[in-house]
């Protein structure tokens, strides 16, 4: 099918009144939770997962995807106005967005961020339209060895690109892989780590685990802090940037869009890595790098364009290979599984309405978000008046009742409670739950494809090297590992002289 026909077909799905309402709802919720520092996209999507049971697959994913990219837009608002990133990819926006607000230029900072996000999001959606069918075509020839390696790369890259050290990310990932094995062995049918509990025979379900780790874990984290009020000190003023702002920020917007679109495609990619990299690029390219950190508009424009482009092209590996490249998309992957749809190369031909409908909805969503983040920004800022504890309370009740409704099992509520505590503790001890959840999702794919690969090859690991595609993937992994290890070694040698690091332990 021709690309244009497919997009038109997708737009027909996205523009159905029902779906239109859910795109709008998704990006609206996304912007709201982007604004609220205490509640991120992962927690919100986890909270709404049970809802996908009652919605049509395309509609459900349109809603959840809208929350994801909407939150990337909305996260900017508090970064600029309060120096508090609404979600992870907006951390970079605080570097120059907040100084701009302090100089009385909060409006242009928010305006250029919205325009940058729009440019990045729209361009990346076009990239998605062009690239996804091509990659899906290639992926059709993939067998178990290729899937093993891609899933493995995904976990390793997420571990490397996270905020915590590789060791911390890998133990969390290992725990995720282990938890994925609980229940019946997919091949021999033997129970594993069930401790003779019948409730655990079916394995641990993804929804209660995600809800516990992200939802309840985050709520407990907020509860443990004393509630503090938030007050906006800076006036927003005129939003639309001036012509000279556009001239100054234009090239950064373009570079950010290209960089984000590319980085989003990689496993482990997405908005966070894209925005960070764009900031580094902009600072290095600048004639006067000392302006950065003091309110340089390029430092807002580039990363914002990159983060939205990256969050959009990150859908490519999910929709074509069935490999979620980051944690939020792992939740979307789970939502598709709930609907009985396994994302992968056949999704485009088997369920074109889901595939093209979701992509087309992004065009609609980005237009809505541009309006929300320019004309309606004053209204969204008002939600900051609501104390986070009140929202958390309602969230907890909805979460607990919601998880029960999925399978009508009280056991799932207990799982939420247990994993809520696990998520809370991991965060308090300086770990990230992201790699755990991603490994939990990919664990099933990894185990099955690895065991199938070994069955095919008669126990010979050479199968991963001799097949051209898997050999190629392996070579890329090897190069990445060498580069990372090499750079770490070099930096540690450069900074080794003053022995201060290990002495500063508590």
């Amino acid at each position, binding site marked *: 099918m021709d690309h244009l026909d497919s997009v038109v077909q997708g737009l027909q799905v996205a523009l159905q009144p029902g779906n239109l309402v859910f795109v709008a709802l998704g990006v609206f919720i996304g912007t709201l939770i982007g604004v609220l520092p205490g509640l991120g996209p992962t927690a919100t999507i986890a909270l709404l997962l049970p809802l996908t049971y009652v919605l049509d697959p395309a509609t459900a994913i349109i809603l959840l995807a809208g929350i994801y990219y909407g939150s990337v837009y909305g996260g900017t608002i508090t970064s600029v106005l309060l120096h508090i990133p609404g979600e992870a990819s907006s951390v970079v926006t*605080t570097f120059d967005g907040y100084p701009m607000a302090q100089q009385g230029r909060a409006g242009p900072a928010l305006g250029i961020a919205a325009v940058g996000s729009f440019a990045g999001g729209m361009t990346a959606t076009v990239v998605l339209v062009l690239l996804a069918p091509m990659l899906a075509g290639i992926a059709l020839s993939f067998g178990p060895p290729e899937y093993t390696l891609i899933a493995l790369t995904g976990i390793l890259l997420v571990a490397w690109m996270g905020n915590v050290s*590789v060791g911390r990310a890998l133990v969390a990932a*290992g*725990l995720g892989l282990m938890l994925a*094995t609980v229940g019946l062995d997919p091949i021999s049918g033997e129970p594993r780590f069930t401790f003779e509990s019948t409730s655990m025979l079916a394995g641990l379900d993804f929804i209660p685990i995600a809800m516990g780790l992200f939802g309840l874990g985050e709520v407990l984290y907020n*509860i443990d802090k*004393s509630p503090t009020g938030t007050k906006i000190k800076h006036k927003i003023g005129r939003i639309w940037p001036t012509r000279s702002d556009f001239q100054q920020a234009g090239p950064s917007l373009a570079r950010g869009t290209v960089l984000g679109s590319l980085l989003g495609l990689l496993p482990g990619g997405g908005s966070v890595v894209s925005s960070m990299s764009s900031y580094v690029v902009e600072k290095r390219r600048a004639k006067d790098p000392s302006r950065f950190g003091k309110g340089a508009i390029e430092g807002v424009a580039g990363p914002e364009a990159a983060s939205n482009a990256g969050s959009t092209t990150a859908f490519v590996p999910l929709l074509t290979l069935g490999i979620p490249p980051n944690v939020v998309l792992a939740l979307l992957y789970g939502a598709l599984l709930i609907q009985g749809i396994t994302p992968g190369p056949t999704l485009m031909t088997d369920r074109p309405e889901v595939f093209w409908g979701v992509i087309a909805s992004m065009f609609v969503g980005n237009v809505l978000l541009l309006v929300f983040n320019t004309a309606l920004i004053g209204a969204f800022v008002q939600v900051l008046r609501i104390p986070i504890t009140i929202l958390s309370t309602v969230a907890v009740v909805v979460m607990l009742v919601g998880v029960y409704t999925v399978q009508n099992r009280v056991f799932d509520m207990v799982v939420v409670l247990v994993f809520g505590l696990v998520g809370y503790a991991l965060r*308090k001890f300086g770990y990230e739950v992201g790699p755990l959840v991603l490994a939990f999702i990919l664990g099933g794919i990894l185990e099955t494809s690895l065991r199938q690969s070994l069955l095919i090859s008669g126990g010979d690991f050479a199968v991963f090297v001799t097949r051209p595609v898997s050999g190629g993937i392996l070579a890329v992994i090897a190069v990445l590992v060498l580069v990372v290890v090499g750079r770490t070694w070099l930096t540690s040698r450069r900074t080794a002289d003053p022995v201060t690091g290990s002495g500063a332990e508590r």
Partner: protein
Amino acid sequence: MSDTHPEGTPQETSEAAPAQAAGRAWPHRLTWGVFGVLVIIGSIDLGLGELREPGPGFWPLVSGLMILLASFALRPPKDDEPRPEAFSNNPWRLVSALVSVAAFITAFAAVGLVLPVLALLVLWLRALAGMRWWTTLVTAVVVTAALAVGLVYGLGVPLPSDPLIALLEGTG
């Protein structure tokens, strides 16, 4: 990966906190190491099979080895990596949140949706969120009613038998 972070960003310089925020590595290494070993023992117990036909314990063994090996690489966080925090700044709030959720689950299984939801909302909104009494009661009643109506009548979700809903429907 530390090299994805912009160099010399304002974040880093402002967070050059004194020694108080670091953490010792050995308790982490020990905990994860022991856990990894337990997983490995469990996997061997399940049966590893052979390479040409891996058994049910084969993959759990891989995860156990990963935990064990990664535990050796644990070190105190540096630069802008998140640092361990005190387990609880507010133990009373944390414990009451956990206990009330546990009580909620037990009550939910016994008497259904309405009373436990109402009680949990009142407790959290009043005690944890510090709302005034009347706003607490109004919010709690509205949210409970919305949930009950939405789930029972809107979506037709089968909830544990609820004496209050039964009473309202005149079937109790």
